């Protein structure tokens, strides 16, 4: 039996999470929904801590607190400037439809919970299997070993998904100015000057940590992306000549490195993604470093939400008209 206060904690946290999710979905004002969702993401990281999932907690904290919140707020600003700030209420349901959906959902819940009771608690799962082969994986931390070696295929395609996301976003629209008008606050520039090196160091720390403890490329990349976002908020942007081929190369670099490492296997008579045992460790480290750089840029590009135009810096500075209004 878990000790008293811990059990209360485990009863209260899911309740708070459910309440936040419910309030986020049903609140009339959209901004309140986004803020409640950000609070939901913060507390979700606590749930992963209680479920003994350190890597997932790190990823949720880094991506949830850093990237998703900024992504939603940026999108909300653009949507409201285009479609106005109207409150939206749920669809007015005919009673029959409401009853039908309600019972369907409750039946699904009952079914799932019932099936949970029948689930046998089979011993060990895949943990012991991973631990047996951990030595050959080139890293000491099981989750990183699974991510980059045993199930490298998922991670390879996952980076491809991220790349596709950027390509899809770039097809839709050109980059709009990231801010209506730059936030010229001396405190912010001072804060950025202090925070950017710290974020860079912490990203390196998480990346180095990934080989023997919870951490790794994705968490490090979201920290780097958060640093880049901080820079964007104080008006920084990539000069025009860098936002052409060099940016595209950097975005694709991580995926290409992983692909090259994967292809070494078949070239040397092994299966795809089967790294030659001699240089497993350096190969994985190199791939992880390049992945971190590319994913950080990809996450930032998704927040900017538009393709770079050859002539202007990426994202373009605030338009002069907005500056005129600036006090």
């Amino acid at each position, binding site marked *: 039996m878990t000790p008293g206060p811990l059990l209360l904690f485990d009863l209260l946290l899911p309740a708070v999470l459910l309440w936040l999710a419910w309030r986020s979905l049903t609140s009339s004002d959209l901004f309140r929904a986004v803020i409640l969702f950000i609070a939901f993401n913060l507390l979700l990281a606590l749930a992963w801590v209680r479920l003994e999932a350190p890597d997932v907690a790190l990823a949720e904290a880094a991506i949830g607190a850093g990237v998703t919140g900024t992504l939603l707020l940026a999108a909300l600003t653009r949507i409201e400037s285009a479609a106005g700030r109207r409150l939206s209420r749920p669809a007015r349901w005919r009673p029959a439809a409401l009853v039908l959906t309600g019972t369907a959902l409750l039946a699904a819940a009952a079914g799932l919970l019932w099936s949970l009771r029948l689930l046998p608690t089979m011993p060990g799962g895949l943990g012991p299997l991973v631990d047996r082969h951990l030595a050959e994986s080139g890293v000491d931390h099981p989750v990183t070993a699974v991510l980059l070696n045993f199930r490298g295929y998922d991670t390879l395609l996952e980076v491809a998904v991220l790349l596709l996301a950027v390509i899809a976003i770039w097809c839709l629209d050109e980059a709009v100015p990231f801010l209506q008008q730059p*936030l010229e*606050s001396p*405190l*912010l520039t001072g*804060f950025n000057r*202090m*925070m950017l090196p*710290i974020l860079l160091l912490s990203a390196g720390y998480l990346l180095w940590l990934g080989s023997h403890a919870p951490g790794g490329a994705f968490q490090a990349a979201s920290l780097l992306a958060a640093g880049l976002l901080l820079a964007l908020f104080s008006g920084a942007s990539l000069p025009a000549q860098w936002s052409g081929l060099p940016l595209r190369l950097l975005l694709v670099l991580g995926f290409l490195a992983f692909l090259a490492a994967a292809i070494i296997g078949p070239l040397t008579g092994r299966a795809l993604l089967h790294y030659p045992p001699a240089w497993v460790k350096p190969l994985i480290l190199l791939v992880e470093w390049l992945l971190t750089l590319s994913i950080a840029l990809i996450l930032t590009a998704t927040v900017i939400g538009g393709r770079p135009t050859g002539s202007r810096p990426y994202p373009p500075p605030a338009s002069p008209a907005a500056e005129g209004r600036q006090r």
Partner: protein
Amino acid sequence: MDPRDILSIVFLLAAAPFFLAGTIGLLRFPDVFCRLHALTKADNLGLGLIVIALALQADTWLQSARLLLIWLLVMLSGATVAHLIARTALRAGRKPWSGRS
């Protein structure tokens, strides 16, 4: 119970009221600026006391250094955010609360 444990317990117990004060201030104070005031109390002192208590329990200097770093970062971002939110509220024309309005 060696003295380190006792000191840690004292610091932990001392931290609780600051977090409570921060939250009650957040609920009771009349406008944004006072609430910002209450919020930063929880940051600086509440977390600071917890960090001191845990640093006493830490086995190596590295761990207490990590705790200190976390505390400094929270204070740094707390102060910056408090300034920026207050500035936005002020620019949006929100007057600070003044007596029975």
